């Protein structure tokens, strides 16, 4: 008993890492917690505004729109509800997997492997952002913007552009940081450092973006 108390004291006395993770990793986790609360604030506002509008009624433009009617087009096709967004969701999931593979190759100090999987992750992120750009353009052409929405309640448009825009900004930043990580990997920066922890930290951020998309997808496209 005495010894465990003694050990516990030493563990929390500084100069040690009680959670057995590095400073950088725990700090990216704390950043992600705060970012979760930012996104939760946006999505909870969405929920409050949505419940304050009458639920969907055919032809009633003050009621909440039906996502199956709003999101029914993709590049080159119409009247196929949710197909394009399903593709976008898959892209993000797969890019999360390629990121995990980059992190794993980093553990084995395999520089070429890290670079290869980072390239796939960047491609996935770019496809997602470009798909979102296409969807935004399409919806703006249909007449949806921050002030008006031809499918129903106007606050739907405002919340859609605000929340998917904030998420898209996160994806874009992730793509930029992954590109920087790819250049650093190629120049051997992490190899000389002796570990690829930076890829792990970027990976945590990238999976967080995927996690947020699960809830954006739920709020706007499914419910």
């Amino acid at each position, binding site marked *: 008993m005495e010894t465990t108390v003694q050990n516990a004291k030493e563990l929390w006395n500084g100069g040690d890492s009680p959670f057995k993770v590095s400073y950088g990793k725990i700090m990216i986790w704390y950043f992600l917690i705060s970012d979760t609360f930012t996104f939760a604030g946006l999505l909870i506002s969405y929920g*409050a505004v949505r*419940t*304050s509008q009458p639920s969907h009624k055919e032809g009633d433009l003050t009621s909440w729109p039906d996502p199956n009617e709003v999101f029914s087009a993709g590049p080159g096709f119409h009247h196929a509800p949710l197909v394009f967004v399903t593709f976008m969701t898959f892209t993000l999931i797969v890019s999360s997997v390629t990121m995990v593979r980059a992190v794993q190759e980093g553990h084995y100090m395999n520089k070429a492997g890290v670079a290869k999987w980072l390239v796939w992750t960047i491609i996935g992120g770019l496809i997602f952002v470009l798909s979102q750009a296409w969807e935004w353009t399409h919806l703006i052409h249909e007449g949806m913007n921050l002030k008006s929405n031809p499918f129903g309640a106007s606050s739907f448009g405002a919340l859609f552009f605000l929340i998917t825009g904030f998420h898209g900004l996160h994806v874009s930043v992730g793509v930029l940081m992954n590109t920087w990580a790819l250049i650093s990997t190629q120049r051997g920066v992490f190899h000389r450092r002796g570990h690829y922890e930076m890829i792990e930290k970027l990976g945590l951020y990238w*999976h967080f973006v995927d996690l947020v998309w699960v809830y954006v997808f739920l709020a706007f496209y499914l419910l």
Partner: protein
Amino acid sequence: MSTLSPDAARQRVWKVCRILGYVTIFEVAAALIYFYFFKEDVPKLLVSSLFIILSALKAYFIMSEFMHLKYELKAMTLTILTPFLFLVWGVIAFLWEGEYWLSLKELWR
């Protein structure tokens, strides 16, 4: 750190990917089947609850496997997860508030 061999770790990641893919396909299929066939007969609350449960399942897989939370120390996991309890309160409180706004709108129409 997980103690899995490189091959096992690799296979595990793709397995989680497949699970996330299947759940997403199932969600979209359920949404479309509801939209085309059961819009009038089945209460929306039922499918909505299904979507919320399945999204929580996806979140669990992303956090535990991709973000590696399952393999961290328990104290670390709790430090990260407990703040999210506030969000449960937030969701309930603000959806409640939204319905109240709706009732006020109808009252003063």
